[in-house]
């Protein structure tokens, strides 16, 4: 399975993504520059973390107009797998590929730590290797990770089972105290209605090696490898 890892000016988790994916049997990953327009030959797209365009205007606001993003929109519309991590999640929301938006953390501070997440749904190509309710320990590192959506959108996300992971404590309890950034309903990651686009603030690629303290990120990457991919044309 071949992954395209996008690179914008200011992306800084692209190398980590490529490294983590290339270490997995059955996966290979290549960088794709934001000025490129072709995703031909790729089975999935990763929009990595970082500070694309210096977070100018709003996080992800400028990146949504990069040439490659039009191809990503077409790829997603055709059912292709798209995973946005951290700044990648922000870009997918700004692009309209995912509902809602990410705003300044409630506590105003940049938060960088390991964080527990509860898998809320295994009905997706991103979480099918997990068990429902499984608690994952995956790092977060963001200043604008507070997920916001209006009440109608939240109701829809819940009704369609689109909330894939929520912030929780070590026991799996979803509490205010375990919410690192003030996200509504402790939302850490959501997918689109057709379940082929997933964005999350935590960094699974930073939890793929025992030397980094956790290998729970592999649950998400392995899920992608067992899913049926749609080839880009």
């Amino acid at each position, binding site marked *: 399975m071949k992954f395209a890892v996008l690179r914008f000016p200011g992306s800084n988790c692209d190398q980590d993504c490529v490294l983590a994916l290339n270490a997995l049997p059955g996966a290979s990953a290549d960088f794709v520059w934001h000025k490129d327009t072709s995703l031909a030959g790729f089975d999935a797209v990763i929009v990595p973390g970082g500070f694309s365009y210096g977070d100018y*205007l*709003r996080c992800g*606001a400028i990146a949504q*107009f990069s040439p490659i993003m039009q191809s990503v929109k077409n790829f997603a519309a055709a059912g292709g797998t798209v995973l946005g991590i951290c700044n990648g999640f922000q870009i997918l*929301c*700004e692009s309209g590929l995912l*509902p*809602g*938006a990410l*705003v*300044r*953390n*409630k*506590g*105003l501070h940049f938060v960088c730590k390991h964080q527990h997440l509860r898998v809320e749904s295994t009905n997706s190509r991103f979480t099918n290797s997990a068990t429902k309710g499984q608690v994952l320990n995956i790092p977060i590192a963001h200043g604008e990770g*507070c997920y*916001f*959506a*209006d009440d109608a959108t939240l109701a829809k996300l819940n009704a369609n089972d689109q909330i894939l992971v929520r912030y929780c404590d070590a026991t799996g309890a979803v509490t205010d105290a375990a919410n690192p950034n*003030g996200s509504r309903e402790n939302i850490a990651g959501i997918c689109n209605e057709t379940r082929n686009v997933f964005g999350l603030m935590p960094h699974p690629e930073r939890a793929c090696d025992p030397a980094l303290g956790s290998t729970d990120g592999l649950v998400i990457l392995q899920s992608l490898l067992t899913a049926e991919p749609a080839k880009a044309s």
Partner: protein
Amino acid sequence: MKVHVSVLPKPSVLDPQGAAAAEAIRHLGLQGVGRVRIGKLIELELPDATPEAEIHRIARDLLSNPVIEDYSIAKQ
């Protein structure tokens, strides 16, 4: 002409910066301060003939995010 586009968080969106500033204002001794919201002011230099609809398009599609922000336009 110069056009000022003001962008403010929607009332329904949590604005921790505004809340922190309101707290600081109280701390400085000004009582009765209500809600404080912090946004941004963007100044554009545009040809005089720029249609109003074009300015709104730029304000809506790029300068603000309608999910979380409202904007207003003032020609200077």
